[in-house]
């Protein structure tokens, strides 16, 4: 396939602002894994600002490959209820590869998902917040799935900010904090959008 010309000027991004809370979050938005799936993992963490204070009004989205390596998504991330106009949530069976969660008052978020494949051992993350003129992309590479040295090759010493580390106390629990600024500033990614 030959690359198509990119002649049109893109529509610029703008901040999500402070008032998306009644519109974008959905019930069960972080329950990406099918209900009760034995291999499900939990990835969680906090979003911090430049003073190390938690960011209570961020929204995070997650997108990943299936455990078998497929990148095909599926509908059903948030089923609507035609009777009430409300949300039905997921059906508990399918895997859509997509999740969306807001941070709480303490800046904390969590998702339950299936482990990504070793060929793409990460959750792609898109972060929105009041104050950000556009969204930020990063990746949460799952410890034990990502090859040794891969993150250093990718981003040098700061590559460890991309690691979702095994969290103490529980099998299948991983911690991934995001630092918007400062010494521990997360490596954010650019995919070539202008």
């Amino acid at each position: 396939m030959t690359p198509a010309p990119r002649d049109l000027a893109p529509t610029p991004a703008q901040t999500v602002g402070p008032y998306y809370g009644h519109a974008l979050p959905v019930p069960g938005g972080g329950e990406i894994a099918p209900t009760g799936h034995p291999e499900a993992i939990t990835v969680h963490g906090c979003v911090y600002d430049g003073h190390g204070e938690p960011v209570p009004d961020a929204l995070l989205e997650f997108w990943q490959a299936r455990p078998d390596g497929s990148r095909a998504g599926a509908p059903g991330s948030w089923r609507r209820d035609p009777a009430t106009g409300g949300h039905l949530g997921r059906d508990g069976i399918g895997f859509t590869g997509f999740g969306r969660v807001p941070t709480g008052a303490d800046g904390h978020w969590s998702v339950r998902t299936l482990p990504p494949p070793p060929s793409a051992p990460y959750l792609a993350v898109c972060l929105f917040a009041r104050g950000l003129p556009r969204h930020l992309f990063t990746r949460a590479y799952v410890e034990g799935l990502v090859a040794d040295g891969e993150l250093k090759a990718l981003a040098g010493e700061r590559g460890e900010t991309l690691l979702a580390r095994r969290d103490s106390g529980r099998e299948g629990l991983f911690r991934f904090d995001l630092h918007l600024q400062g010494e521990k500033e997360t490596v954010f990614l650019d995919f070539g959008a202008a």
Partner: protein
Amino acid sequence: MTLTQEGLAKGQDATGAEGVPAPRRVDAYRSGALRVPTRAPLALGGDPEAVELYGPVFGATEVTALDADLTRQHAGDPHGERITVSGRVVDRAGRPVGGQLVEIWQANASGRYVHRRDRHAAPLDPNFTGVGRCLTDTEGRYAFTTIRPGAYPWGNRENAWRPAHIHFSLFGRAFAQRLVTQMYFPGDPLLAHDPILHMITDQATRDRLVAAYDPELSVVEWSLGYRWDIVLDGPAATLPDPEVTA
């Protein structure tokens, strides 16, 4: 350099809307001071294996027929000026982005959001929530019926008022095409003063966020029509053929 300083410097090129004297300077958007990363992002645009070249899939389960009509989500009619907002979603090559989710949210006609933290002293409207969604058709077209939102004050400084705007969230064929932005209305005098719009430093780019009044889209005896087309950016790497991945 902090974003605040950059915003101040760049705001000086502000030009006024029609018939309005251009302000000398638009205030900086202050909310990002501790939030905007200080380091340049790592460029991964050339990686053909990136999961971000694929994206979530949405379908009939994600929308109901009434989700695109924000004026019919309650028992009664909302207050305000009924409008139709429609346009096409395309990529930078002009190809339609079909079957993708478009979400919108907005203030009511008085400039008040259905959000507990919005303390603006304007009335809530029991017949308006201000949330809509739809899927683009095969031509990339979306359409909403809603109410023209009001301007509202915010805390950037004394007498900072947001121009009327509708927040848009769009998915493309790839996660890297994700876009959250805001649509504005033509002729709004507040466009010349808004720090959020003026984070975009050149007029031509700002203009791409302003819809056009389109009598063709107006519905007789019912609503005023606005057209706003959206061009999704990137990614740099060639996207997989949509027919193969669908």
